[in-house]
């Protein structure tokens, strides 16, 4: 672990230097994610505007949720974006040979080689949205509420990371897995709305709701912690029962689900990478 903490700054410096070949690239990829998030945000804003609330959440609540969500998402983007390239054909090109030769964990190398500054744009945008819409809603800023939310948010990038990791690992069998990656990763879009809108009473809604909390747990990132923050004392539906909106309880659920999910993804990755056979040379 110590070795990796020492290595990471070197990798990061290298990644940043290679970025500097084209200076404009920096600005563009930063702008890219900001603009696309702004467009999604505006779409959401305009479509909710006529009715002012969704599934019990008012417009500023929903916009605050969106901002909150962008931060863990942006952190994951910054650190692990290179996985997309491995799913999208880098394995074909023999990149993995180079990585497997070095006595460093292959996953560490795959992620550390690249720094996606677009994620930084998302974090900034997220903070901005929270700053704009936070004052419009009543927020409980006491320690016992904010602390578990922040701790939970530190673990939730693992959710995005884990899902990208196991879907990418399919490329070790299939040589390419980018469409499966983006198919699953895009389910994150569900998480941008308060998950209570899926909880409509029909069984389809029930399935979507619980899949979002446990199987592809994008709903854990934003909806669950904020639901407890915004509606204290209310019960939150959970599988077939409901749990009280307790911040520490929810923090525990987030940590448990994200760790289990990531561990399973990593085990699959370690298993799948053995399937890789070099083209030789």
């Amino acid at each position, binding site marked *: 672990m110590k070795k990796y903490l020492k290595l990471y700054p070197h990798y990061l410096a290298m990644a940043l230097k290679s970025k500097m*070949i084209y200076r404009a690239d920096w600005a563009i*990829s930063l702008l*890219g994610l900001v603009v696309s998030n702004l467009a999604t945000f505006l779409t959401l804003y305009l479509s909710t505007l006529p009715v002012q609330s969704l599934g019990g959440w008012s417009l500023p609540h929903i916009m605050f949720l969106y901002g909150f969500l962008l931060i863990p998402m942006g952190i994951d983007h910054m650190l692990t974006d290179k996985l997309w390239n491995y799913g999208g054909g880098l394995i074909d090109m023999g990149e993995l040979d180079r990585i497997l030769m070095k006595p460093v964990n292959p996953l560490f190398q795959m992620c550390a080689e690249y720094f996606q500054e677009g994620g930084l744009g998302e974090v900034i945008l997220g903070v901005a949205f929270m700053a704009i819409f936070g004052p419009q809603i009543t927020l409980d800023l006491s320690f016992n509420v904010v602390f578990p939310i922040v701790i939970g948010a530190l673990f939730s990038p693992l959710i995005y990371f884990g899902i990208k990791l196991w879907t990418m690992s399919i490329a070790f069998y299939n040589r390419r897995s980018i469409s*499966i990656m983006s*198919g699953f990763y895009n389910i994150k879009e569900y998480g941008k*709305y308060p998950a209570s809108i899926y909880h409509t009473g029909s069984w389809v809604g029930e399935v979507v709701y619980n899949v979002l909390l446990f199987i592809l747990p994008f709903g854990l990132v934003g909806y669950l912690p904020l639901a407890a923050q915004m509606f204290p004392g209310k019960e939150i539906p959970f599988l077939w029962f409901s749990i009280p909106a307790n911040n520490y309880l929810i923090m525990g659920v987030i940590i448990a689900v994200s760790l289990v999910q990531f561990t399973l993804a990593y085990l699959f990755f370690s298993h799948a990478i053995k399937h890789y056979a070099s083209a030789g040379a």
Partner: protein
Amino acid sequence: MNFFAFRGEILGWVLQDVVTLFIMVFLWFAIYKENANAAINGFSYPEMMAYLVVASISGQWINNGSTFRSVNEDISEGQISSWLTKPVSYRGKNFACSLGNCLGNFVLFFLPLAIIALLVFTLGLGLPFPEWYNIIFYLVAGFLAIVILDSLDFLIAQLGFLTNSLFGIFIIKEAIFAFLSGRAVPYSFFPAWAQNVMPYLPFAGLSSTPVNLLLSRYSLQESAISLALSFAWAVALYLLSVYANRKMIKHVVAVGG
């Protein structure tokens, strides 16, 4: 052919479309549930679904040109010089390839999806069948949309001379086009001032115009005006892209190829 090389990949793209559709249905269901009145900004729930579904499956053929990608590759890999030795116009070649792509997608993906959607919306949700002239208007508007989009793509792809981060530009372009063309939300949800401006911009022709024409949301007069606007933009932007092509060729020579 490249497309069929990885058959497992198709599964993923289908999954992505299904996910998008699901979110759309749930989101709008929740929105309409909040609303006591049946219609929001001139759309009932089935009409809204029809608008968004038609807009999204129309993208299967309209939005599938190859120009942006191929011009980029030509620029970054230096293939442009070899194209210039051939006795075809570079702009014309790109447009022809793009059009071929779009028509292929029209038959392979759009038609089956459109037939399913038609059955669901007319027999299932009780919306009226589109008239024959609505279909003709739609097809004409769709063709104009391809010309507009292809020309814009060609112009934007010129940025490849300045930056290597074309994925970033691609994301920006997609997001802006999807929003401004009315593919994400119909124009009637926009603020009043924007509603007056949007129909006159080239983006309207990409999605809003064809979809509204097919769903016969326009009177005959409005249809004629919107088609004329799309036509004017298509001609203007195509000419602009031809001009950009000439400029570009000079630029490439100056770099020394």
